[in-house]
């Protein structure tokens, strides 16, 4: 029996986190979906048990998304990270990739696109 895949959604924007959660629990994939409302909450969940994919916002109170990416990759280099941002800039995009993010998407995005992307990463 293959190991159950794990996905973590990190954002302080509750409506988006809830909608993404609904999307992924109904997506055609075997995956455990968890959410975190801050960078620090995400760190404690990552330390508990590693994730296959993490989707995180950048600007959050406390630990921000870019630092979170670095910590996740340091903890488990195999975790694939998608970064979401409400205010994109070339510098931020570069920083996200430098810290190990695999994909950088700007809000508001199409939920079907992010779902297809995660399914591809998980499978």
């Amino acid at each position, binding site marked *: 029996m293959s190991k159950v895949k794990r996905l973590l959604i990190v954002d302080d924007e509750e*409506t*988006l986190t809830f909608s993404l959660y609904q999307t992924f629990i109904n997506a055609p994939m075997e995956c455990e979906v968890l959410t975190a409302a801050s960078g620090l909450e995400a760190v404690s969940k990552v330390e508990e048990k590693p994730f296959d994919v993490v989707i995180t916002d950048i600007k959050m109170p406390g630990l921000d998304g870019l630092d979170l990416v670095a910590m996740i990759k340091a903890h488990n280099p195999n975790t694939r990270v998608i970064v*979401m941002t*409400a205010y994109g800039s070339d510098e931020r995009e570069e920083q996200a990739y430098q810290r190990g993010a695999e994909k950088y998407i700007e*809000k508001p995005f199409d939920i*079907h696109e992010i779902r297809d992307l995660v399914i591809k990463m998980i499978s």
Partner: protein
Amino acid sequence: MSSKIQKQKKIFTLLNSKFSSLAEESASHVSQILEDEPENSLKNSQYRLIDKVYNFYKSIIQNINGGLITLDLEGEITFVNRIAAQKLGYLINELLGKNISDLFGEDDDSQKILRMLFVPGKRIDEKEVSFLQKDGGRIIVGLTTSPIHDEDNQFDGIVLLFRDVTEVSHLKLQIERMERLALLGELSAGIAHEIRNPLAGIKAAAQVLEETFAEEDKRVQIVERIVREVDKANRLLTEFFKFARPTKPKLNFYDLDMIIDGVYLLLAPKMLKRNIEFSTGFGKGVPRAYIDETQLEQVFINIFLNAIDSMPKGGSLKIVTSAKKFHVLDNEKEKLAVNNNELNYALVEISDTGIGISRDNLEKIFNPFFTSKAEGLGLGLSICSRLIEENGGKIDVVSEEGKGTTFILALPAFIHK
């Protein structure tokens, strides 16, 4: 006014207007006497003294680095120094007898100062006003006034002293604009986060909801509308950020002909459909411009699209390029990082034969959110102006209603910091 004062005033005016010529005459007369009657030594020394005093005051008044005008109580000009006449573009004689109100700009601030001029006891200290020049141009001056009193200590006239602050005033406006834009850039980052986050939530929630409906369910259309409106709001934000916080240009040398041809190819189908004839006149020896290619493409697309919109019944769109040199002052060389006193620019003139822009609108077309179109956001030209500024260039426009519009871009063809 008593007859005595009136008489004195007439004498004063007459003396003032004749002062220069009489003094010149007397000076030559003194020289003549000195040559012809050397024995008349007492008179000679008195003349010499008068001559010395006269020349002393004359050189002060004519050579001070500022304009000096005197007025009588009706506002008539009674004396003008050389700098004042030069700054206003007149000969001294053309200004004498003219009323000062003809020289004041029509803006509210200038008119307010004009009314204050004749209030007894009121002095104006370094107030900015605009003066109209003979050729219709305007200069901004820092104006100081003081009253003239007659021998009975009655208010009898006004001395106006001014210096040209046009350039300083323009620089001040430019700095204020840059500060406003910097502030806008910072604000926009905050706005982006606060608006795009809920937009992302609304769009995602709507799309999740949509998937719960059967395909034929009419409510799907409602959800699709929500998504469309979110996208529309986001497009508005994206356009606004292009203006408020453009990305730093990635500068390099580019052939403008290539960029213009590329933009034409992109818009050719639209021009064909609208029956618009496109032509170019690429000048020989036009230097390659030191700009961001993508940003310039965006500028050309915006201006071309506006031109197309202005010609609903067809017309022509002509692009002409040429080389232009601007002189650089020695003290500007370091700032502009150039070694010689000439700056090379590539000029691009984009002319359409469309409906043109009214005089009132012409002043506002580069303002964000100004639009004359029912569908437009009013950000296109403000973005163009911002991008050209970021690329170290300049943009200008001339237009005549019913005849067409020409946009003129001056793009740097030298490395600038």
